[in-house]
Structure formats: structure tokens, C-alpha cells
């Protein structure tokens, strides 16, 4: 392998890793706030790509149906639990959030579709349409078992991923999609050819990580999210509702996953079930970061991306095998260094 090839592979790997960073950071965010390892984030990314592709061809995305079904289920769950606990007075507000808001988003997309919106607008529409999915799933699936152990939540999360893949097939069909390139410019960086798409991926990942940092460091809502992650009881005693923090975390995480889906869609063909490997690699990146540190997670995710890039050069058929086999020793090392993740979080 010449140094030229190594440089190309490295840049490729960093771009792949940058995609994983977005999903991995969302995963860590959800985990620290709600203790749920949200495996379906990869699916959210894939669904965003499929949504964008449908919008490009002028079709109503399957996401609309999915969101409407979930909105109805979530509203029923919320109203039932409010009614049962004698807090019926909150039902109108709950309906506005769990039913009206998703319906409005779906309606908005439906009305905007015939106007043949430009690419930036399509991207915004795709993100808007995908963002309600995880908060609604949270309400339907995780809220009723919020006090369960991390392991049980993980198993349910796994099951939810498979359910989502099934729903993906139902709502999006089996065809793969590839969206229009976001840019066709190209650059020379230190003598190596870099195309604009790669650069865009890296920049987007840096920008969104930066925005997240500002959100956590400088807004009351961001601080409240951190507080919920650090100490639930303490947060509640300050009037911070953990369920609401969870919803915000799911929204922010979905935005990051959605952006990653939009960034991969022009370079990879995406199917309804393409999210799994993306989610799994992001998950591994998050584990390397100890499921707690954001910079650690980013480094872990980029590492996985670079590893994958070099592995696919050695043998593209065996790339996943190489990646995951090399990761096993790292994960074992991680579990030795920080064996008490679960207990720490439950404290």
C-alpha cells in the first residue's frame, strides 16, 4: 500500500466515521438521559434517506403513514395513562403534542409536495418528517417501562429495531434508493483529491457536534438535559421532568441521525433495512467512548470508520468481518477498564 492510497483510504474512513459520529453522539445522548440504548437510530437515518428520495421523485414518502400510525398509538397510550392516574386535565395538551403536531407536519409535507420544492427545502421536510418517529416510539414503548433495568431496555430496543425494519418494508417497499448528490465540486487537500461530498460530510459532522456542545453548555434546556442524565431525582426536585428531557433528547438525536442519513444517501444505496449496520457501528463507537463522553464517542466512531475503510481495501467482501473482529479485543479492553457503566448510570 502506497502512502497515496493510505491517504485516500484515511480520508474515506474519516468521512465514513463522521457519519457514525452523528449517530453515535445521538445514541450517547439518549442513553445518558433515558438509559435506553436506542438501537433504531440507524433505522432513523435510513428512513430519512428513503424519505428524501421519495420527495425527490415527487412521491408522498412512506414516512407520512408511519408517523400518523405512531401518533395515533402514542396519543392513545398517553391519554390512557393520564386518565388512569387521574390527570385527565392534561389530555388536551398531550393530544396537541402527540397527535396534532405530527399530523400538522405530515399535512405540511403533503401540501408542499406538489410545489416541487428545491433541494434544501426537501432536506428540511425529510428531517421534519423523521423527527417525530423516535419521540413517539419513546412514548409508546419505553415510557411504560422507564424504570426497568438497562439490560431489559436494551432487549426491548433490539426488538423495536426489528419491528421498525418490518414497518420500513411495509411503508417504503423493498427498492433501494440513492439521492441526488448534494454537491459535485472537488478539491485538492495536501495533494490528495477530495470530493465535495466527503468534505460536506466532515463539515456537517463538526458543525452539528459543535451545535450540540453549545446547546449543552449555554442553554437552560441543554443544562436540564445534562442534569437529568447526571441525577434524575435532583433534576425532578428542580422541576425538570425526566420524560420531557427524554423527548428533547430523542428529538435532538433524531435530528443528528437524520442528517447522517441525508449525508450517506447520495454515496450509498439505501434500503429499508440499511440502518442496522450503521446503527451497530455507531453503537460500537459509542462503547469505545464509554457511553458517556462525547469526545470519546466521536473518536471511537471515526476510528471505526477508518478501520472499515482500510478493511474494505484489503478485502471488500470481508470488510464487516475484519471490522467487527478487530473490534472485539477493543470492546473487551473497554469492558475491563470501565466495568461498571450500568451501575454508575443507575446511581
Amino acid at each position: 500500500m502506497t502512502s497515496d492510497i493510505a491517504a485516500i483510504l484515511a480520508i474515506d474512513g474519516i468521512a465514513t466515521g463522521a457519519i457514525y459520529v452523528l449517530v453515535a453522539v445521538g445514541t450517547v445522548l439518549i442513553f445518558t438521559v433515558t438509559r435506553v440504548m436506542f438501537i433504531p437510530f440507524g433505522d432513523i437515518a435510513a428512513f430519512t434517506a428513503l424519505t428524501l428520495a421519495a420527495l425527490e421523485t415527487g412521491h408522498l414518502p412512506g414516512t407520512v403513514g408511519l408517523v400518523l400510525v405512531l401518533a395515533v398509538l402514542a396519543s392513545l397510550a398517553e391519554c390512557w395513562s393520564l386518565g388512569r392516574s387521574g390527570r385527565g386535565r392534561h389530555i388536551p395538551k398531550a393530544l396537541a403534542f402527540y397527535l396534532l403536531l405530527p399530523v400538522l407536519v405530515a399535512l405540511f409535507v403533503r401540501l408542499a409536495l406538489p410545489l416541487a420544492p428545491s433541494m434544501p427545502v426537501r432536506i428540511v421536510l425529510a428531517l421534519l418528517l423523521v423527527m417525530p418517529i423516535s419521540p413517539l416510539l419513546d412514548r409508546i414503548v419505553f415510557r411504560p417501562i422507564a424504570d426497568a433495568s438497562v439490560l431489559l431496555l436494551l432487549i426491548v430496543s433490539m426488538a423495536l429495531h426489528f419491528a421498525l425494519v418490518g414497518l420500513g418494508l411495509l411503508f417504503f417497499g423493498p427498492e433501494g434508493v440513492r439521492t441526488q448528490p448534494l454537491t459535485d465540486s472537488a478539491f485538492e487537500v495536501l495533494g490528495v483529491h477530495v470530493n465535495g461530498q466527503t468534505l460536506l460530510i466532515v463539515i456537517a459532522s463538526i458543525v452539528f457536534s459543535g451545535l450540540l456542545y453549545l446547546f449543552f453548555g449555554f442553554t437552560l434546556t441543554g443544562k436540564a438535559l445534562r442534569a437529568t442524565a447526571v441525577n434524575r431525582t435532583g433534576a425532578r426536585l428542580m422541576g425538570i421532568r425526566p420524560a420531557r428531557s427524554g423527548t428533547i433528547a430523542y428529538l435532538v438525536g433524531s435530528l443528528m441521525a437524520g442528517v447522517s442519513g441525508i449525508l450517506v444517501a447520495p454515496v450509498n444505496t439505501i434500503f429499508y433495512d440499511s440502518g442496522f449496520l450503521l446503527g451497530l457501528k455507531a453503537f460500537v463507537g459509542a462503547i469505545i467512548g464509554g457511553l458517556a463522553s462525547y469526545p470519546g464517542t466521536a473518536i471511537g466512531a471515526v476510528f471505526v470508520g477508518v478501520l472499515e475503510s482500510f478493511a474494505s481495501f484489503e478485502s471488500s467482501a470481508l470488510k464487516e468481518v475484519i471490522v467487527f473482529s478487530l473490534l472485539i479485543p477493543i470492546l473487551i479492553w473497554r469492558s475491563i477498564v470501565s466495568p461498571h457503566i450500568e451501575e454508575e448510570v443507575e446511581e
Partner: protein
Amino acid sequence: MALLSLRNVSVSYDKVEAVRDVSLDVEAGQIVSVIGPNGAGKTTMMLATMGLLPLAGEVIFEGSRLNGLEVEERVERGICLVPERRELFADMSVADNLILGSYSLKDRSGVDAALQQVYQRFPRLLERRRQKAGTLSGGERQMLALGRALMAKPKLLILDEPSLGLAPLIVREIFRTIASLRELGVSVLLVEQNARAALETADYGYVLETGEVIQEGSASSLIHDPKLIAAYLGGH
């Protein structure tokens, strides 16, 4: 009408009844102290008042029932608990802990002024404002817990053993702070094992033993009660 009333409150852990048929009042502007030995049920009673534990009986605040309200709604109504375990945000800076204390306030205009007041009251917190709460000493933690609670501008402050594990000098400072809350118009429900200091600060007191109120009265009468002196107040 009392600011806070507990009416025939009982609290159980599974089958064990930790608080039995307790009634208690805190008048507006008063400092009311609950004293009693380890395991008497003091903490249990405060957690239930706050909504962190289910209870039988009634909790009435400013004339309306709190039963069925979530913890967060009670905070929004103006009750703030500084729990025995403090529950600080250990991984976050002192300043962020204090800012989060004001989370329940809809009107954000007074937050900066409130922060300055807390720093004035506890200059140590100003020095340590960038430090993580988890790295503070015990006394500093207690100041932070008190400061964070004051940021919420509560009508009623419930303090669970604010002097626990602190050096005598700091204990005195904490009690001075509590006494000065009267001027701010904050009512205080104070749980303490340090019975003498608590009764010296309070207007009214309750004695809790094995989950039941066995005695109540003005703080000055309790402090001279020979039975209590023998049991809780030591020699002097």
C-alpha cells in the same frame, strides 16, 4: 390558614409503616422543626410531602390539595426540598447547579439578581463557581444545595438534616442562614437531629418517634422540657 398542612399522613415501604397518622402545620413565615432519633421517619415524611413517595392522608398547600400532583408540579407551586442526600449535579459546575435551581421559574428576569444574592450569601460558591459540584467539600456542598434551592425562590423550603456531617463552625453558619430566611419571607420546615440548634432557630417544633408525633409545641417550650432535655438535648 397554614401554608402547609399534613393531615393524618401515613407512609409505608411495602408492608412496613414508617410514618403513622402524622398531622403537622407550617404557618406562613414560620420556621418549624421536626426532631427525632435515627429511623423515626423524618426523611420518609419529607419525601412523601414532596411527592417522591406515595402516602395515605392529605397534604394541603396554600389551601389546595397536593395529593396526585407530580413532584415537578409541587416545585412549580413553590415547595423546594433540600434532601438528606443533597442530590447535586456532581458532574456539572457550581454555577450550572445554581442556574438549574431556577429552572421552575417562568419569569427569568430575576434569575441573575438571585444568583448574585446567593453568591453574596455564600462567597465560597462564587470562588468555586467553575468547579464541578462533585469536587466540593461537605460544607460547600451543603451551601450549594441551599443556594440551589434558594434560586427557585420557594415559598416553603424543606431542609432534611442540613447540618449532617458538618464541622461545628459551618453548622453555625448554616443555621444563621436558615434563621435569616425569615426576612426573605421563606417558610421553613427543618428536619434535624441536632435538636438544640434546630429548636433555637425554630418557632415551633414536633418530636417524631417511630413514625408518630409524640410531642409538639412552641420551640421555646420544647427546649426547656425536662423529658426532651434528657432524651435529645443533652446536658449543657
